[in-house]
Each structure stands twice: as structure tokens, then as C-alpha cells.
């Protein structure tokens, strides 16, 4: 990456983070909602650990992937909405009139998503450790866990960018939120796939890449070092990133050429 591009990306990324941190409502949603769901499912479904074959005795550990994945989703939606509002309000045009390379705009937005993913990952990890989550893979695993969270945020962020660039409407991006939510819940987020009884649900969860992102993160918490889960998790994250960024770049080209 050239130094000019790097400067542009870093400035736009910084702007993305600063504006998000200056919206307490957004930050509260991004931190509190995932934590609330975590607290509710971790306690509410604790009895599921009594199912024969459940992989851990602690549902708290099992559910810890949930806030991390949900936080990535929040970050992506926030960034997508921000980008769409930039388009709606003319800020995108203002930036387009500078010698900034279009890819820097995308890079800046995604750098912001990753930075927020890092902030959220560290906060959740700290809270998780404080409430008794036991990370089997140790400190190195924690680093990897945060890394996978950031990559997941980047992948979802690319999808948010596609929606923003295609629709140019903050409202449209926001209203896509339930779709992302559906993708998370129709995965192995609440139970291991082999304990899902309904065939149709198990099939959807098996086809849903979110399951592998969740299982990658979860393996670091409840198993330790599980190469297969990690390869699948990181593989899905990189696949999602590649596809969503390619889509975002194409959408950007289309918008710039309109």
C-alpha cells in the first residue's frame, strides 16, 4: 500500500472510529445489547449442559462466542449506516472530489470497523474473564479470539458496505439488521450442531458460514487448540472477507460511475 493511500485510509478510519465513539447511543447498543443477550442465554440455557454429549459443563463458556459475533454485526451495521448517510448527505461526494482513491474510502470505513471490533473484542474479553469465562487456549488463544472477532467484523463490514453503496440509504441498511440477526440465530450459536434435533435447522446451520465463525471462536474457549475448528473458522472469515470486499469494490465502482 502506498504511503498516500495509507495516510488516506488512516484518516478515514480514524474519522470512522471518532464519530462512532462520539455517539454514546451507538456505543451503548454495541456493548450492552450483546452483553444482555449473553447474560440471558448463558443463564437461561445453562440446563442444556445436561444434555448427553454437550461439549462443556459451562454454558457461560459455550455462549461466549455470541457477544463477539453479535458485536461484529453491530459494527458492520453501524459502519454501513454511516457510509449510507455519507452518501445521502453529500459527504461522499465531498470526499470523491479530493484526489482520494476510491478504495481508500472503503479501506477507511473497514479500518474503522476493525478498530471497533478490536475495542469490542477487548471489552468483551475483559468482562468475560471477570464473570468467570475460562479460555482453554490461554493467552495466545485470547489473541487469536480477538483476531477472529476482528476478521468477522471485517467480513460483515464488507456486507454493510455493499448494502450502503447499493442503496445509498441509511434506513435501508438499518432495516437489513434483522437479516444479519437471522443469520446468527440460524447457526450453531445456541447448541452444537450435533445436538440440533430438527433436520432442516441442522442443515441450515451446517450451510451457514456463521456457524463456523462461532465454532472457531468457541473452540478457543471450550476446547483449547482445535485445528479443524480454527481452520474452518478462519477459512470462513477470509472467504467472507474476500467475497464481501469484492462485492463492495464492485458496488463502489458502480456508484462512482453512475
Amino acid at each position: 500500500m502506498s504511503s498516500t493511500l495509507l495516510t488516506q485510509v488512516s484518516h478515514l478510519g480514524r474519522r470512522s472510529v471518532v464519530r462512532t465513539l462520539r455517539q454514546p447511543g451507538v456505543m451503548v447498543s454495541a456493548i450492552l445489547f450483546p452483553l444482555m443477550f449473553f447474560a440471558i442465554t448463558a443463564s437461561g440455557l445453562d440446563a442444556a449442559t445436561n444434555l448427553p454429549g454437550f461439549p462443556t459443563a459451562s454454558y457461560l463458556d459455550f455462549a461466549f462466542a455470541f457477544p463477539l459475533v453479535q458485536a461484529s454485526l453491530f459494527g458492520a451495521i453501524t459502519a454501513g449506516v454511516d457510509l449510507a448517510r455519507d452518501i445521502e448527505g453529500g459527504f461522499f461526494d465531498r470526499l470523491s472530489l479530493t484526489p482520494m482513491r476510491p478504495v481508500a474510502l472503503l479501506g477507511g470505513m473497514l479500518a474503522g470497523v476493525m478498530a471497533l471490533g478490536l475495542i469490542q473484542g477487548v471489552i468483551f474479553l475483559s468482562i468475560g474473564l471477570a464473570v468467570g469465562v475460562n479460555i482453554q487456549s490461554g493467552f495466545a488463544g485470547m489473541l487469536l479470539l480477538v483476531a477472529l472477532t476482528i476478521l468477522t467484523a471485517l467480513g460483515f463490514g464488507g456486507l454493510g458496505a455493499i448494502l450502503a453503496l447499493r442503496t445509498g440509504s441509511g434506513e435501508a441498511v438499518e432495516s437489513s439488521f434483522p437479516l444479519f440477526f437471522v443469520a446468527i440465530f440460524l447457526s450453531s450459536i445456541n447448541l452444537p450442531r450435533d445436538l440440533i434435533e430438527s433436520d432442516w435447522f441442522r442443515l441450515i446451520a451446517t450451510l451457514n458460514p456463521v456457524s463456523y465463525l462461532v465454532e472457531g471462536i468457541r473452540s478457543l474457549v471450550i476446547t483449547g487448540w482445535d485445528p479443524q475448528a480454527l481452520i474452518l473458522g478462519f477459512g470462513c472469515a477470509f472467504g467472507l472477507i474476500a467475497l464481501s470486499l469484492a462485492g463492495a469494490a464492485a458496488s463502489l465502482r458502480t456508484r462512482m460511475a453512475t
Partner: protein
Amino acid sequence: MSAIGNLASGSTRGSFGGLFSVAGAVAWRQVYKFFTNPAFLAPALFPIFFFIAFAGGLSSVEQVPGFDFTGGYVAFQFVWSLLQAVALGGAFTGFSIAGDFESGFARRLMLAASNRRGILLGYVLASIVRTAVTGGLVTVVALIGGMRPAGGVDLFGLVGLALLVNVAATLFGAGVAMLLRTGEAGPLIRTPIFLILFIAPVFVPQNLLVGWISVASSLNPMTFILEAGRGFLSGDPTGGAFAFGVAVAAVLLLIPWALFGLRGAERAG
């Protein structure tokens, strides 16, 4: 006759005739608005989604030792989804009231209504009509999903509880919406309703809950309504009378709250 025409033709301020005339006009207008806009089904979407995700994904949970609900996991989840649908029906009515204040329409209602309590009653009646449709939709999805109610006449108990929950949620939403009179009322209506729904025995019966949620849910009125509703559905009604008492108490407590909101709106002009 138009809604406003009905309002103006009501009898003197404060009379019962005025109350029902105004309520009828407001309810008519709201219901008309619902049925000309497919978005009125929105309160059913989240419950249906959660129903599919939980009933489909967590059905093996009923094999947990101590899971004593006999109606099957689909029915177990349906009751929670139904109560969610009716509570959200109330919340969405709150959003609609806030929207009416933002657009200025509510001010027109306040000026025209011969009995302003009728406005509140009208919104509640409309909310019940809306919820009958969205609740019905959730029920149809559950039946397609394999729910087999075993309750017989007891099912009316579930319907009665759902109705009371809807009225309580509508009164709560109306109070908040009338006090704030802007779209900012949305999160303040939605968040407590979601919290009260989730801090309940959503996934397993109350006796299987552990930790903080076991304590919190035992203090949550929704827990009693939910467990009684599940009992009515499975033909094993327990705690029904107490649950009705809780639901009626909630409605009675929220009536002054909604009237307080109405007075706030009156003071604001």
C-alpha cells in the same frame, strides 16, 4: 363519517358518550391505517423469527432431565412467541402514537376530541384488533411448525392472558409516547418490553433456571403469565388464577400511567 367528524360529533367533554364516540373514531382510524399498510404486520416478524430459531434449533433441550412440560418444545416456545407478539403489538401502538404527535395529527385529535380519554381507549382498541391479526399469524406459523394444542377450553385462558398483556403493553407504550411525543420514545418503549420478555423462562421451565436469571425471573410478572399460558396450552393449567391476577393488576397499574402521559400531552399543548 371521517374520524375527525366522529370526534367532533361526540357529546360534551368528559361524558361517557363522548368517551366511546371518540374511542370508536380513533380506533377506526388506526385500524384503517393498519389494514392499508402491510407494515402493520411488523410486530409479528420478531416473534416468528425467534419462534423458528428457538423451536427449531433448541428442541433437544426438552430432553434435559427435569424438563416437565408435556406439550412438546414447539408449543413451549409458541407461548413465549405469542406473548412477545402481543406485547410488541402494544409497543408498536406506542410508536404509532409518538408518530402521530410528531406529525401533528395527535394535536388535531386533542383539539377535536370531546373526551380525551377516548383517544387512549381508541388506541387500546385498535391495538387489540392489530394484535388479533399478528397473534393469529404467529399461531398459524406454530401450527404449521407442528404445534398440537392439548388444552381444549383452557386455550381461552391463554387468549385472555394474551389480551391482557397486549392491553398492559399498549397502556405502557401510550404513556411513554404521550410523555415524550417524539420518535425517541421508541427505544424507551421497546427496551423494557424486550427485557421483561427475555428475563423469563424463555428456553426452559422456571425450575431449571440457575444463577441470576432464576432469581430475576421469579420476580418477573411475565414469568407467571408465561408459565400459566404454557399450562393452558398443554391442558395442564396451574397458577392460572394467579397469572390472571398479575395481568389484571398490571393493566390497572398502567391505566394511571397512560392517563399521566395523556395529561403530560395536554399540558404540552
